[in-house]
């Protein structure tokens, strides 16, 4: 039997689209199937309220790989990344701190809290830059299996070992500490000001069900510095037109290379015969065959729902059931009649042209986590905010604004059970707005429309199991050669001809595109299609 397609990709999120584009570019016949009416998965833009475009879920370009931008010619297909110019942290006592690309200004800002920290800040940045240079290959290569004798694995391990040794003792130890310590403990070795440590530490907890004082949260601090190395390609930023514009650019590129993309085409089942994937069955009953099936969906959903337990080895099912998803975050999008000034720094200055952290101190962040630990949303949450309309006026009517608020913690597993989220949704939204109103006194009066997404909604609408935005906790036990499970961390799966290409595969979540690209590379290398 000849298949019409070389590859069918389940899910039109950004990783599925990247994988499709690379395969199509290599001359393969590819079909992408997306359940929703628009592409992008959690990286989408939608006009939810007339005239206002929301980046509904994911709201920044986070480490989008420069080689993907280049290989897939994304600027040609409409990608325009606007830089995030600053990181702003207001405090309840009326003070505030803005860190920006201007070293002198940043130094002055930090010095108003601590002269010592102002001195240390650039030194810290330099050390982190060196580590980022070491770590970068890790996210741009497939994760080697550390307990394997295969020559390819050994070679890769030796190379990484040598790179690690070349770091020297001090940086090597710093890298180890970064991988194992809590964000706060790690930063406290450098800085003395809690007001500085708190907003810096929260990049380590985004999307995880951990606190800033939980071991293992320091690592993600590095991602920001990796972005700096990626340099002019603007790995961190805001996409003109919202996050969906990234997905659309990738989709256009994929189509340009010959991929076929269908929306409103939800996959109900991945067909497996004799331990090998044959194709898929759509929700409307249509059957489609392909030489390989590649899933951009979250691993547990892919295997336990689309494949079925009976087709899988028992050990693998156990691993999947242990796989931690535990969504911990929500999203609130606001359409605003006018700009809500921050009391500590009014006006539309550079401080609102970047991301804004509501993270006044580390105790505050830990209290927010404590609420979630015991099954409640945070009464006083940590928030990461951007104003897309400030950077891209097309996101809202003139003079009006869109406010995108990432909120943590909103644990999927409420103590009453996740199904109770719909009835708590508005109370959760109120907690967010009430907390923000302490920093932006005019906020409440300017809200035209409010969209509240709980982890329950993320699961229902976007297929993010348990509302986990990264398709699985980014914890030490689920990274590298263990993502999603040890033994199956190289995009291959126990089902022949079925591959993974989503955020549940190495190197994990964020709008990086790396899993999609690396999966395509492995599939082509092995001659699977």
């Amino acid at each position, binding site marked *: 039997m000849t298949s019409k397609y070389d590859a069918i990709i389940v899910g039109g999120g950004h990783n599925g689209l990247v994988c499709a584009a690379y395969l199509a570019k290599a001359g393969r016949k590819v079909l992408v199937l997306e359940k929703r009416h628009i592409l992008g998965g959690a990286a989408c833009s939608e006009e939810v309220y007339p005239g206002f475009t929301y980046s509904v879920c994911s709201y920044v370009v986070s480490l989008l790989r420069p080689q993907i931008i280049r290989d897939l010619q994304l600027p040609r297909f409409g990608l325009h990344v606007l830089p995030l110019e600053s990181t702003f942290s207001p405090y309840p006592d009326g003070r505030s701190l803005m860190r920006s690309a201007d070293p002198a200004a940043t130094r002055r800002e930090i010095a108003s809290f601590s002269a010592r920290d102002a001195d240390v800040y650039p030194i810290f940045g330099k050390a982190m830059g060196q580590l980022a240079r070491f770590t970068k290959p890790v996210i741009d290569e497939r994760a080697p299996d*550390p*307990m*394997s004798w295969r020559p390819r694995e050994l070679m890769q391990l030796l190379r990484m070992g040598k790179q690690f*040794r070349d770091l*020297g*003792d001090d940086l090597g*130890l710093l890298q*180890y*500490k970064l991988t*194992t*310590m809590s964000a706060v*403990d790690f930063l406290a*070795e450098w800085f003395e000001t809690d007001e500085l440590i708190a907003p810096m530490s929260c990049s380590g907890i985004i999307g995880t069900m*951990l606190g800033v*004082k*939980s*071991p*293992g949260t320091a690592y993600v601090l590095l991602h920001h510095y990796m972005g700096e190395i990626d340099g002019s390609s603007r790995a961190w930023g805001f996409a003109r037109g919202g996050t969906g514009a990234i997905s659309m650019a990738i989709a256009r590129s994929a189509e340009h290379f010959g991929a076929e993309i269908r929306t409103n085409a939800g996959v109900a089942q991945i067909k497996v015969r004799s331990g090998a994937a044959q194709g898929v069955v759509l929700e409307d009953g249509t059957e489609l065959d392909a030489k390989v099936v590649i899933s951009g969906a979250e691993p547990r959903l892919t295997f336990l729902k689309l494949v079925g337990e009976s087709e899988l080895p028992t050990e693998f099912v156990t691993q999947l059931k*242990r796989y*931690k998803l535990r969504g911990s975050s929500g999203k609130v999008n606001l359409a605003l009649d006018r700009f809500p000034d921050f009391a500590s720094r009014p006006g539309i200055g550079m401080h609102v042209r970047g991301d804004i952290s509501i993270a006044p101190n580390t*105790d505050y962040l*830990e*209290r927010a986590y*404590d609420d979630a*630990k*015991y099954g409640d949303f945070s009464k006083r949450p940590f928030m990461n905010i951007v104003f897309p309309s400030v950077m891209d006026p097309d996101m809202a009517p003139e003079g009006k604004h869109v406010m995108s608020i990432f909120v943590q913690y909103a644990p999927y597993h409420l103590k009453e059970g996740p199904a109770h989220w719909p009835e708590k949704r508005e109370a959760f939204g109120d907690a967010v707005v009430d907390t923000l109103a302490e920093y932006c006194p005019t906020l409440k009066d300017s809200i035209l429309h409010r969209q509240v997404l709980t982890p329950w909604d993320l699961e229902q609408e976007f297929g993010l199991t348990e509302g986990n935005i990264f398709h699985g906790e980014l*914890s*030490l*036990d689920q990274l590298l*050669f*263990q993502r999603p499970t*040890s*033994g199956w961390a190289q995009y291959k799966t126990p089902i022949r001809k079925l591959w993974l290409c989503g955020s549940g595969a190495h190197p994990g979540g964020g709008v990086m595109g790396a899993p999609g690209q690396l999966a395509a590379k492995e599939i082509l290398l092995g001659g699977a299609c």
Partner: protein
Amino acid sequence: MGTALVIGGGPNGIACALTLAERGHAVTLVEARSELGGRTHVLADTRTVQPWAVRSLGLPLEWSASPEWIGADDSGVRASIEGLPSVVAWRKEVERFGGLIRTLSARAAPNIRSDAAWTSLVGPAVQALKLGRANGLELARVGPLCAEDWLDEWSVPRDAQATLVAPALTGTWMGPKSPTSALAVLFYAALSGRSIAGGMSALHGALIERLEGTAVSVRKGAAVTRIDIADGRVTGVTLADGTNVMADVVVSTVGPKATLLGLVPPRDLPVGMDQTVQNIRTRGIIAVFRATVTSPFFGGAERVVLAEDTVAVERAFDDAKHRRMPVRPTLVVHQDRGELVVHVHGAARDLDAGWSVDTAEALRATVVEALAAHGDAGALASGTLLTPADLEREYGLEGGHLFHGEFAIDQFLSFRPHPSLTQYRTAIEGLVLGGAGMHPAGGFTLAQGILAAQSV
């Protein structure tokens, strides 16, 4: 063989002095307090004491089956958990890694710095190969987990989990929901074996007795104020009364922080070492309550964890984390022949309100009230409480930490307390570290003093 001076008359100090004397050194042991024993007065758990350490010191001690940990809550003492199939299965799982952990704990941790000879990597490589692929991958997966998740995987009920976890968290700054707490629980379980008959006091007695039969010169009530160094080499120590004691080698069994920041003159520290040592985390979160009782508590159970479940243990940790007075501390109780030694989990060294007579009394009252339901309350009236601040002041434990340094992935094995110090020697010639802040971590092993002496 030259002269050696050992700072600290605690279990590691005595073990170190005995080992050095055995090897022909002329040894002086100095102890700041008026009596020897150090932490044997505030610890009670001997199940993690390593049999090889006791043998090496020639201590005439008997071993007995360890009293099992029993859970208790306000309604009384719960049934034994050791018979539960889930716990039995979990203990079997621990033994997949037990041999490796015990082997690693019986020798100096490998030097992983670039100055190490490549041959030093042979040992660890052999260990890794012995472990095998499946066990190696599983250890890499389990280590970073939180204890609760790991035990959930084995279907251990949450109340039984509290009983297993709380004693293992003694040397950590973690709750059962902290990532890597599974590693602490694994190490504690793997290092646990039989207990010393007669408990900590028998060990204390045996150490003292053994010391008396040797030529080790013991000076009690002699606080060291400075380690004397000339040209990067140790020459001896200066005592509080101003006298100098000369020695070729000084082994400090007080904490690495207390030693390198408190006793070594700053100008003699290598550049950057002060920051390195400053970064060692020693946040104590345990107070110690002691009482002599006439009738048994907890129906005579000798080892009791007073906590409903892992949430209760986690909440006690939350109080420590937020530097609040613990409302319902987790109590880890050791009861030996009328002596109660209770570790009160949840009491931060850096309490926001500060440790004073009032706050210490408030905590003491909380502990007494919690214990009162399980025995003759009247007997507790004379019980005393040592806050982490008291532990720091009276026993020289930095941060009030019972193990001189937290158990954490970046503070264990070759990282304890720092890769440049892991093999007991320091950059200062003749200065050796041999206290609980050194490798191995994971429980009271009695190993550090011996391993430090062997490195001299």
